């Protein structure tokens, strides 16, 4: 088991390294430097700028500098926000994004799983149809539509929630709903179908035949097993939440990391794009690793399959 985790961990580190490398060479293959403007910059200033940011070094030297920076968690200065480093941007934005993301994950797991279980237990009853209808709607409506409709109806027409910002706790409601909409629906559907699958198994019938109380049949035997596929989906969920934050933070004017990323994309702020990409990728790889570990712990079958395959 330990061996497996170690191997997975080294593999994750290698993935992050590869992502960083690919991102670096992708960004450096763009014609023109970060200081290319419509109005040409005088050559001496250009030279000074390039020297300041070490852009006149050979590419391979820059690459090793960059790797060194990554290892020491120094992502370099931002090219468009003069005087701030990418680290500053991340320090300012990440906690906010993480907070909203945390509430979204909480909503997804608690509400998604419970709604899915209820729906499975009441299969083909009105409540099941209602849940499935909402869940189907949820996976077909893009997050930006959800967010704008929320602002339009609840912030604009009814005035129940602030239309932007996180100044009051109520401000979290909209972003969290918009962010979790898709994954929430997906988790509800996934939980329902895997719960139905489990309820059909022989061991559930055996448990019932042995006279176990319904509550312990469900709690001890059914739900535990039904949640295994849900756990695997948690990794991709976190990815969906991160990328979802690009849109949601823009609409709700939240100064999180997603908004910085979108801004840096439109400003062609290469160091920020690179830094945030690597951060996101590393975070994602880490989450996938954690989910894998969690997975192997809950379901011993998985490990052997992977070990042999």
């Amino acid at each position, binding site marked *: 088991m330990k061996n497996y985790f170690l191997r997975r961990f080294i593999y994750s580190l290698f*993935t992050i390294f590869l992502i960083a490398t690919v991102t670096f060479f*992708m960004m450096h*293959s763009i014609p023109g430097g970060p200081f290319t403007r419509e109005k040409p910059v005088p050559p001496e200033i250009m030279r000074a700028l390039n020297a300041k940011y070490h852009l006149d070094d050979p590419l391979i030297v820059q690459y090793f500098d960059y790797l060194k920076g990554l290892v020491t968690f120094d992502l370099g200065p931002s090219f468009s926000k003069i005087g701030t480093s990418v680290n500053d941007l991340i320090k300012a934005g990440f906690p906010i994004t993480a907070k909203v993301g945390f509430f979204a994950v909480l909503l997804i797991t608690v509400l998604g799983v419970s709604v899915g279980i209820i729906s499975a237990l009441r299969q083909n009853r009105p409540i099941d149809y209602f849940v499935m209808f909402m869940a189907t709607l949820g996976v077909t*409506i893009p997050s930006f*539509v959800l967010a*704008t409709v929320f602002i339009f109806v609840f912030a604009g027409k009814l005035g129940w929630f602030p239309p932007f910002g996180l100044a009051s706790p109520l401000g979290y409601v909209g972003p969290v709903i918009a962010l979790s909409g898709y994954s929430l629906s997906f988790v509800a559907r996934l939980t329902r179908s895997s719960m139905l699958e489990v309820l059909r198994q022989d061991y559930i019938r055996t448990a019932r035949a042995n006279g176990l109380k319904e509550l312990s049949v469900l709690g001890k035997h059914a739900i535990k097993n039904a949640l295994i596929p849900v756990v695997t989906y948690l990794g991709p969920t976190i990815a969906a939440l991160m990328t979802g934050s690009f849109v949601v933070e*823009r609409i709700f004017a939240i100064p999180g990391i997603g908004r910085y990323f*979108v801004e840096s994309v439109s400003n062609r702020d290469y160091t920020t794009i690179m830094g945030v990409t690597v951060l*996101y990728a590393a975070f994602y790889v880490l989450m996938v690793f954690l989910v894998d570990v969690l997975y192997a712990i809950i379901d011993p079958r998985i490990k052997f399959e992977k070990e042999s395959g």
Partner: protein
Amino acid sequence: MMEALNFEPATAEEAQDQELLRISLTYWQDVWRRLKNHKLAMVGLIGVIFVILFAIFGPLFSQFSYSDQNLDFANTPPRFSIYRVADNPDYNVFLTRDYKLLHISDNGTILNRLKLDDKDVINKKYTYVDGDKSVLLDFSYNLLPGKEAEYDYTFSMNGAPEVIQPLKKVSNRLYPFGSDDLGRSLLVRVMYGARISLTIAFVASLVNLLVGVVYGSIAAYEGGRTDNLMMRFVDLLNSIPLLIYIILIMVLVGNRGLWTLTFALGSVYWVQMARLVRGQVLSLKEQEFVLAARALGVNRSHIISRHLVPNAIGPIIVTMTMMIPSAVFTEAFIAFIGLGVSAPMASWGTLANDGLGGLMSYPYQLFFPSLAIAVTMLSFNFLGDGLRDALDPRLRKG
């Protein structure tokens, strides 16, 4: 010994046993029969056909093209209240949110815009003229202190008594979905956006299909170290947040054309297809018909393309059907953060992005593109679910 003596003619009854009682169905007839019984799938199929027809033929029936502008008729909603300011001949007007006065016919066709002649900002009275007619707009009612009325504004033509009640609500005949901030028909733009969005989705899915099928089948058929190496690479791609990479590719290429986006989408999402095809081929390649083909000396590429892939076609089609809506979704997402096709081209994502700015005043500009996305997503999802059940009943989900 085979001699005529050993045989006797079959009786009529026995002969009848040999006859087919039921028409034998081919695989596809059987699929179609099952699909027809799946109500939601049929709804999805109709939706898909409708969206495709809408995209292909819709723009042909319109007098406008997607880039025709008319600033005079900008931001007109799909339905509006008209006021009759004169009888015999009837003269109806509609006041837009940005205080443009439009002359509307009885059935809702926008005829022309009245010229703003005089602006009395202090008393909140504007005068509009159209030839010898002049309309006085008084919108001071709920804006100035001391005046409180049930209506917000009144019209009066050539000094006639004030009109306070709208005549009726009519649908916009000129722009059924309303017009955008440059006076372009939103209906035509949504139809045109359907072309762009669907083209991107179809082509990207096709690229995914090709790459995924070739990659997956080769990996599975070769097996051993090749398979291991190829699948490690897929695992690696799978552990990367791909959307960020699409964004990076879009930033890199810089040119916001249709094909850049298609290429970006097509180049990263084949991983799922490759895994699926590999799984299918792995189980198929041990079967006797493959052994038979090998024994007959059929070469590798032939075995893959003629024997293995066609037998895995069911799950491939299902995955493909599910890939199209997710490509539409991803395209909309990318367009929404400002990396979509450049103006005056429009996809559903860019239209939604454009509509966001004026959400409070012109919600319909966001509503229609979003509706189009949602309808497409729903239709393809329903169809995909139905196809999964119809193509391979073993995969049926509870």
